[in-house]
């Protein structure tokens, strides 16, 4: 009886620790995914501003990458990893868990926008599609669910 109890307790502790570690990993991984999305978005911004020549192949490739980055990040918001709860610094607002449905919808919308951008066939479709992703996708979700940068 004692042996089983001991094993049970240690198993429980390990699972708990793993869970806690997994939570920290979730924060790290989703930040990485978002950073990648930003890196993939940058050259497209350059094209909008006319600093870089428009290239359809690059647009489609990067947009598909962004969609993949977002799909990865989407699954990395377990309970207890919000600002003030997670051990790692995060800008995730409690609204993410208080308004779960809206958060998922905002994420889905951003992914949809990224896929729509990846599906364009001409330069004419480029600007509205990329602004749609940046504005209706990134900005709209961040406005509701991400804290402003921590002021020093």
């Amino acid at each position, binding site marked *: 009886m004692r042996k089983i109890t001991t094993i049970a307790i240690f198993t429980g502790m390990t699972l708990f620790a793993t869970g806690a570690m997994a939570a920290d990993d979730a924060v790290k991984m989703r930040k990485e995914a978002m950073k990648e999305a*930003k890196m993939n*978005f*940058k050259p497209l*911004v350059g094209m*909008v*501003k006319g600093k870089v020549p428009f290239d359809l192949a690059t647009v489609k490739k990067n947009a598909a990458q962004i969609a993949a980055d977002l799909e990865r990040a989407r699954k990395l918001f377990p309970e207890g990893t919000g600002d003030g709860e997670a051990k790692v610094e995060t800008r995730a607002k409690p609204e993410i868990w208080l308004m779960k449905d809206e958060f998922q919808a905002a994420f889905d919308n951003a992914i949809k926008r990224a896929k729509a951008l990846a599906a364009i066939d001409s330069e004419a479709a480029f600007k509205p599609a990329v*602004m749609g992703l*940046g*504005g209706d996708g*990134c*900005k709209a979700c*961040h*406005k509701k669910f991400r804290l*402003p*940068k921590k*002021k*020093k």
Partner: protein
Amino acid sequence: MAAMHRHMTKHPILWSLVSALLLFMLITAGLYAKLSEPLPPSALPKGHAPDIANGKILYTAGGCISCHRGIGPDVDKPAGGRKLKVPGDTLIPPNITPDRDTGIGNWTPLQFLTAMKRGLAPDGAHYIPAFPYTSYAWMTASDILDLFAYLQTLPAVRNKVERKPFRLGRFALAFWQWLALPRGEFRPVPGKSAQWNRGAYLVLGPGHCGECHTPRNAIMLLNRARWLAGGPHPVEKGSVPSLRGLIRRKRFKDAEDIYNALKYGEALGYEDISSGGMGEVQENISKLPDADIRAIATYLASLE
């Protein structure tokens, strides 16, 4: 009379103090009365036909909705009522929809002009400068009247907001206003382009950028020698960035870069401009005519 004279000669120090006190109270009362004078009718521009379209642009540039936003279904109207936390106090912006009982529906243009340029309410009370009249005072009288005309076209919302008195008293506030209010209105700078001057006007006046981006002294007066140089946030925790030398410090490449940041914000990757209170400001600015956003960018790009 003779008895009083005997009293005064018997207690000279006491009576000197009393007379000094009476004199002081008289001067203070006189000064307070002077500092609470509304603007005279001559302050109104002669024969000005209000331009409602211009009023709407100024309403957007002024960001009025950001403080005066109503509650619940009135979130898109300036019906007031939301709590505004400032150091040591919680204020509630009033209703500026044209409701006749609880809003500004029965105000005269001169009363609105007095509020914006002197920080005085129609009943003579001094407004707490969370209402940034120290910036709005730079606006031209005709612009302020255009803004008033635009406000009168908004839907009237019934929402009574009780005014809170200033916690340090009306005399302190009146004196502070006397120190803080700019004299006269914005004058275009000769030698600078029309675009630059438009940008300067929008930033100094309706944009009231200086209220956050200019550091203040111990009694919360703007340090105009360090105009837009940033510093501690006047109301929240943390600091506000300097808007001087934006190009020299490589924060932005050029005026075009600043324009893109103001117009698109995070949609084009300008994340910082969506941080904290600036997010709301960027949203407001993005709704301005392109020429005005470019003007603001031109002015800011020129600051050293």
